[in-house]
């Protein structure tokens, strides 16, 4: 058996280590929280006691997100919940802080309301919340109730204890007794008077009845007067009628205006043409008519709106990144530049187009075999174009923290693996390309660290299996998403 080379042994060893690490981190990092995976809603609790960042959010015991942040706002705890994008909750959802396990771990339980409730928008706030009902708060409430009681009883007893209080209390009681006594005396004294008042009332009602019965005649007169008044009213109406008749006959200014045939004709014509237009529209004739009457138009409008909506929604997920990176190569004292366009239709997938300015250039090897008189000569011509442009085109797919890329790397076929760490701030990449029979493949290791939003630094070891081209590099890059452009395209408010 051929003995394994040192490189092979070390290589196997490292690969095993990386595989184990990858497996373990995949098992643990089930639900990663990048900036884009999910949406935030807020809940305001009277107390977020015991709640910590990162604890699960559950609906019916199923984990649907995590607690992102807990801050204080106006004396209440503002808890930011990050929910998975495929989870929809209604606006009438209720959030409660619950306890699980013997150790009393806290989590947030969402209780869904009516299914027909409008869905909660990202960034919305949960109206109904229930803070944890623990023994502490319960005791605290009892305590405050007890304290209130104590205050009341204290006040009463204070009143009783103080001399002044006792005195005033005694006065109040005395007054009350006096009042009751006076009332009693009044009633007893005026017993006769009261009786008389009642008698008077009886007499008054009897008089009233007598008046109505004896004065029947007078009442009749009143009715007659009313009749006369109405007669006058009738005459007035007749006078009015005469005026309108005058107008009808075309006498006076108004009369002339109304009686003039021309005016009426014009008005009639206007009305006729209006009716014609309305009929046309009803029959679906003419442009507007067609628009209004045609079912297709409506469908078209609907479809257009739907597709616009779809487009806008897709636009939300669809991302484009422009990236420039420069690498300073230590050995050859050169700069290698990359300009790339990353089109990311989904969160876990992207396409990469890259233009590489490589100072090392491209080596072109031409092998010509000529046979002249039975003698074969082989001519190998090597041309190196300095400072050559190369291009890369790759597809990438991400599984948890591991990203895989395949495609064209610097004008050669190849594959690569990326490992994302610390919320994607650190990316370790290993690229292998230019698989060639008589040369070692080009292997490149790099680490990108993004301390700020648009800026990152990079360092690595390029072509490290080859004996000639291997060199360390260090560099930096700029990274822009299409955010600004996108804001113009889809982020602008659209009236619904």
């Amino acid at each position: 058996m051929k003995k394994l080379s040192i490189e092979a042994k070390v290589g196997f060893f490292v690969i095993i280590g990386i595989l184990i690490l990858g497996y373990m981190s995949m098992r643990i990092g089930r639900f990663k929280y990048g900036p884009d995976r999910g949406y935030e809603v807020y809940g305001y609790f009277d107390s977020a006691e015991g709640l910590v960042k990162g604890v699960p959010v559950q609906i019916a015991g199923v984990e649907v997100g995590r607690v992102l942040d807990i801050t204080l706002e106006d004396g209440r705890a503002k808890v930011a919940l990050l929910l998975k994008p495929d989870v929809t909750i209604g606006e009438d959802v209720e959030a409660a802080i619950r306890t699980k396990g013997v150790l009393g771990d806290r989590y947030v339980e969402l209780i869904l309301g009516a299914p027909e409730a409008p869905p909660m928008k990202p960034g919305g706030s949960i109206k109904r919340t229930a803070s944890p009902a623990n023994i502490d708060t319960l005791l605290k409430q009892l305590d405050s109730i007890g304290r209130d009681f104590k205050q009341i009883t204290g006040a009463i007893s204070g009143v009783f204890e103080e001399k002044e209080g006792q005195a005033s209390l005694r006065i109040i009681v005395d007054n009350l007794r006096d009042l009751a006594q006076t009332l009693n005396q009044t009633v007893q004294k005026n017993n006769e008077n009261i009786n008389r008042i009642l008698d008077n009332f009886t007499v008054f009602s009897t008089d009233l009845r007598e008046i109505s019965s004896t004065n029947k005649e007078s009442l009749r007169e009143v009715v007659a007067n009313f009749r006369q008044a109405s007669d006058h009213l009738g005459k007035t109406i007749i006078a009015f009628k005469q005026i309108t008749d005058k107008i009808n006959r075309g006498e006076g200014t108004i009369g002339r205006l109304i009686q003039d045939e021309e005016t009426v004709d014009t008005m009639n014509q206007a009305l006729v043409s209006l009716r014609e237009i309305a009929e046309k529209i009803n029959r679906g004739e003419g442009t507007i008519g067609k628009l209004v009457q045609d079912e297709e138009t409506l469908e078209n409008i609907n479809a257009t709106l739907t597709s616009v909506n779809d487009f806008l929604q897709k636009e939300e997920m669809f991302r484009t990144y422009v990236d420039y990176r420069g690498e300073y190569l230590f050995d050859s004292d050169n700069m290698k530049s990359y300009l790339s366009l990353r089109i990311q239709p989904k969160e876990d997938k992207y396409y990469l187009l890259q233009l590489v300015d490589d100072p090392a250039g491209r080596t072109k090897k031409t092998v010509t075999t000529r046979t002249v008189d039975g003698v074969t000569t082989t001519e190998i011509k090597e041309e190196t174009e300095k400072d050559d442009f190369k291009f890369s085109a790759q597809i990438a797919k991400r599984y948890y923290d591991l990203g895989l890329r395949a495609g064209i790397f610097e004008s050669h076929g190849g594959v690569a693996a990326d490992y994302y760490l610390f919320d994607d701030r650190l990316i370790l990449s290993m690229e292998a390309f230019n698989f060639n029979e008589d040369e070692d493949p080009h292997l490149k290791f790099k680490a990108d660290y993004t301390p700020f939003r648009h800026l990152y630094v990079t360092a690595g070891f390029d072509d490290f299996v080859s004996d000639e081209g291997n060199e360390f590099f260090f560099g930096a890059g700029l990274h822009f998403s299409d955010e600004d452009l996108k804001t113009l395209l889809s982020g602008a408010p659209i009236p619904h």
Partner: protein
Amino acid sequence: MVKLGIIIRLIETVGRGLIRFIEEFGLVMFLFLASLVWSLRPPVRIRAIFKQMEFVGVNSLLVVLLTGIFTGGVLAFQAYHGFRLFSAEGLVGSTVALAMTRELGPVLTSLMVTGRAGSAMAAELGTMRVTEQIDALYTMACNPIKYLVVPRVIAGVLMLPVLTIIADFVGIIGGYLVGVGLLQINSGIYVAKMIEIVELEDIFNGLVKAACFGLILSLIGCYKGFYTSGGAEGVGRATTQAVVIASVCILISDYFLTAAMF
């Protein structure tokens, strides 16, 4: 007057000890900076690095595997007895996993590698020093730090995390075998609790620690070997000191790294 002389001599001993400590610390730091500078200067001796990686990493695999699997197993045993008191046997898995990834994986691996590779580094460089091979390298205009120290330090820093992750993994497997196989803990609960409680951060911080320990053990091994004097006896002394000092430094720095990270 005699008494005063004794007191002064005592104070001198203390002072000498401190000065020696600072001197040695300075020399180790110097070696660290020198190897840092030399490691950045081309050409990269890739073959020498690979050779040391094989020596430090691949050849330590068996020792680390044995250490890891039995440590995990014994941890599961001990944790089980504790957790049984309040019927929380399901937490044994997470305890083992947390202890392995955060603490025992990196520390025990580094101690084992110190015993295996750190001592060998000191002995190798020490022998080269007393047989004047290092001086010979100087005369050949070949920097011995670049040629001897840098590959060992790089190998230590790179290989210890790899060994540690393997130790973590087999430790967890060892704990699982004991917990589920011997102690009849429900395997579903065992694994679920472990996944629930262990965070990615635990593993990574353990690996960062391991890289630091790798630096310490290779640096001290090289330092003790590089500055050996006194013939064969000196080599023996250097080897012993390298192992002792490196082990103690690993445990001390472990405390500070843990305090800083978690």
